């Protein structure tokens, strides 16, 4: 049984019907690990380059990619029931709402010349 699980790098995504989770191949973990390390190096290098207004978007794009790799592979979301996807989706939805809503308030205060509430 252990052999079945070990070689089963690509079993069906929703378990095999007797309480076993999906077992991801070790090579997948190592690939993700290498990608995370490369991403870290890229983040540091990119921060020393003068990309004008693009420094922060580039840093955040790399961070989002790294976070997605961790979520989908290390945290097994790729192989998890859709219910887990709903929890993650809800968190992302409310996070984007919170940031977009409050950022819109701050940006519009500057635009309408109302002064910043933080100053």
């Amino acid at each position: 049984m252990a052999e079945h699980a070990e070689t089963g790098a690509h079993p069906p995504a929703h378990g095999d019907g007797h309480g076993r989770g999906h077992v991801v191949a070790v090579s997948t973990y190592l690939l993700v690990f290498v990608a995370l390390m490369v991403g870290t190096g890229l983040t540091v290098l990119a921060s020393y380059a003068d990309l004008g207004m693009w420094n922060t978007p580039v840093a955040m794009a790399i961070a989002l990619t790294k976070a997605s790799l961790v979520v989908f592979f290390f945290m097994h979301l790729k192989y998890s029931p859709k219910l887990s996807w709903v929890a993650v989706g809800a968190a992302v939805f409310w996070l984007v709402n919170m940031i977009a809503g409050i950022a819109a308030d701050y940006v519009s205060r500057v635009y309408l010349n109302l002064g910043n509430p933080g100053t």
Partner: protein
Amino acid sequence: MSSLSETAPAAAHHPALRHHFESMEGQKEASTFGMWVFIAQEILFFGGMLLAYTIYRNLYYDSFAAGSHHLDVKLGTINTAVLICSSLTMALAVHAAALGRRGATVLFLLLTIALGSVFLGIKVVEYADKFHHHLVPGPYYDAEVLRGADGKALPPEVALHSQIYFALYFSLTGLHALHMIIGIPIIAVMAWLARRGRFSPEYYTPVEITGLYWHFVDIVWIFLFPLLYLIPHHG
């Protein structure tokens, strides 16, 4: 391996199955869903602080860049690598538990604890530097060690607001470190339980869920590292 049949709902007889669940699979799904909901809450918890960071960084950009440039990028990069390594060992521990390899599970869990401790140790060195240079917000705060984009001391306004950067630095990294301080004993308990043979390929949910928590802590750092350590002096 156990003598449980492949086809019958043999898992129903597993000692770890609680009576209010019909199957081991259903029980595991409920547990992992619960953890994901907790993580969703954590995302918004850290998200609120990152929102405060975003607003103040836009209001006082020069102060934030000056504060960020005082941080040690080398130590920050090493710590990021250490944490990613600990995520790998955690993933391998869950993998070993899923295959019923007791020794490997314990070994990888202990490695995760060791790497987590290295991270916290480096964090202590960094915090000590901030205390030494009076960069802890409060009555003894002094921005004289900070330098602007021109290499000169900061103008009074910029120096004053650099305190906001360090307040956010300590709250964000402090909360992150607190999560690790909570996580390490939990991993230690998992290693203890694994050593006592409490897990099997049919039941290793606690290890899996501990892994989810630890990987989430890694994700938080993946965002904190560029946001706190790598703010460029230019726009």
